[in-house]
Every structure is written in structure tokens, then in C-alpha cells.
């Protein structure tokens, strides 16, 4: 039973890596785990969820009405991108970068559309990681 769960978890992780949801940073984080700190990655990811909720909310508010402060939008997304990068959230990070490009171009519609994609990728990843950690425990 135990081994089957482990195999499933390993398989899921492989799949998340292959499909580009995660990159090698996630693996680096797992390498930091040991018997004394077995849930380190899950703890980091939980922090990521908390921080992300805040970033997303703030960006949403800033996208609501003009005048749009693109420098501020860019900065907020930069922070979200940073956290995403720190846990290896590859797809989320990529969409964050796209958002930043639209900020540079001062294209609010582009920002809005890309932001929806960021949120979607984030939600997808969150769901998959929750499944993964359940298997891992």
C-alpha cells in the first residue's frame, strides 16, 4: 500500500515536470527535505498560497479602474513571479512574464487577459499539488 502510494506520487511528479507545470527548482526544494524536516516543501508551498492570494487580490484591485499604474502593476506581478519561481511553478511564472510585457507596453487589455491566464494556471497547479502532497504523506 505504502509503496503504491509512493509510486503514484513519483509518477505524478514526473508528469508535472514533463508537462511543464513544475521545473527543477521543485526538485531542488525536495532535496532539502530530510527525516527531521519531511514536510518542508509542502510548508513552503502553503506559504506560497498565502502570499499568492494576496498578490492576486492586489493585482485584481489595481486592474479594476483607471488610471492604471503600469509600473505598480509590473512590480506586483514581479513579486508574484518571484515566489512562483522559488517553488518551481514554471507555467505560472511564464504567464507572469507575459503580463509584465503587457505592462511595459501599457496595454491594459493585454494585462487583463493575461491575468486570467495567470490565475487559471495558478489554480490548476494548486489543485495538482494538493493531490500530490496527499499522495506523498
Amino acid at each position, binding site marked *: 500500500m505504502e509503496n503504491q502510494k509512493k509510486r503514484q506520487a513519483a509518477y505524478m511528479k514526473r508528469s508535472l515536470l514533463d508537462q511543464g507545470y513544475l521545473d527543477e*527548482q521543485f526538485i*531542488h*526544494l525536495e*532535496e*532539502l527535505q*530530510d*527525516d*527531521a*524536516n519531511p514536510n*518542508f516543501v509542502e*510548508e*513552503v508551498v*502553503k*506559504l*506560497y498560497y*498565502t*502570499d499568492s492570494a494576496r498578490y492576486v487580490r492586489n493585482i485584481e484591485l489595481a486592474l479594476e479602474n483607471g488610471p492604471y499604474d503600469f509600473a505598480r502593476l509590473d512590480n506586483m506581478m*514581479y*513579486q508574484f*513571479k*518571484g*515566489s512562483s*519561481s*522559488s*517553488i518551481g511553478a514554471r507555467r505560472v511564472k511564464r504567464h507572469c512574464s507575459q503580463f509584465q510585457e503587457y505592462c511595459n507596453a501599457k496595454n491594459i487589455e493585454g494585462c487583463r487577459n493575461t491575468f486570467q491566464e495567470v490565475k487559471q494556471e495558478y489554480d490548476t497547479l494548486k489543485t495538482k499539488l494538493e493531490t500530490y502532497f496527499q499522495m506523498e504523506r
Partner: protein
Amino acid sequence: MEMAQELHVLAVDDSHVDRKVIERLLKISCCKVTAVESGTRALQYLGLDGEKSTMGIDGLKVNLILTDYSMPGMTGYELLKKIKESSVLSKIPVVIMSSEKILPRIDRCLEEGAEEFLLKPVKLSDVKRLRDFILRGEGDDNKETEKNIKQVCSRKRKFQDDSTTQSMLSAVVTAHDIESSSPESSASSESLQPLSKQSKIG
């Protein structure tokens, strides 16, 4: 007072996630960590803000400051400048971390006296390399300490038992971890309490 057997690193980063990760990297590398969320907090901790520092004894000496570049309020660069301008603290090596590889930024930091510029996400190999570099530079007759730390550190990783090694290393009171206000912040694993009054920086 004899040199503390573990390096004490002050980590500065506004991101909860990054603070947690850097803290883990440093602990695995057998460093004592104090993690704060801003340049202002860092200066307070170091006693540079004019008010009395929360830490005032030798045992809490900081051997390395590892700071993020982009932070709200005071940037890592501004923090670096303040440290290098201080007669008391200018000798402490400062390393800047950033997720952006902007060459003029890197140059500016190095010119201002930063020891190194690390690209995020920071790797364990980066931290170990820093630790070894600092160990080599700290004090004159340090070869014995450097060897000891490396031996104990690799033993620690092998047997994966943090608590035993902690008490082996610290016979004297050294700094504890002051966590910034992070709900998930891992509690300090040290059983020794510092002599000075503790206040939470958060």
C-alpha cells in the same frame, strides 16, 4: 571571547517563501540564521537605527548579510550602502540576491562593496560556497574551525538529526532566530536562550 562555531547569517527578504527557503539552505549548511523582512528591520537588528539594538553582546555577531535586492522601502542596494558607510558594520560581508540578472545593477552592487551577487532561486551549492568563503576569511587561526564545521556539517546531513548536532556545536549562547511575522514560521529549534531580552521583529 572565542569565535562562535557556527556562522551567523542575517537574511533579508520581503518574500515569506524566499525567507523560508534561504533559511533552510543556511541551516543545512550549518549556519545560524536570523531572517528579517526588510532593510529597516535588518538595520534595527544590527543596531544601526539609532535605537538600542535588541542584540548587544558579542555572541550574536553577524558573519554575513544575505539580502534580496528588490524590496519595498529600502532596497538591498540601499541597505548595502548603509552597512558599508558604518564604521562598526562595514567589515561584514554583504551578498545581494536577485531574480533579475541586470548587469549595471550587479556592477553597482559590487562597486558599493557587495561580496557577491546571487541569482535567484538560490541553490544549496551557492550557500555552501558562501559559507566556505566566509569561514576562510573569518579570523586568523580558523583552519581548525573551518574543518570542524565542515566535518560536523556533513555528519549532520548523513544522520539527519538536527537536535543532537545543535547542542554539540553551541556550548555558548549564540543568536536565536527572530522570525518575522510569518504564521508558518518554523519555531526556533535551539534549546538555548540568549541572555538579552528577546523581542519579535515582525
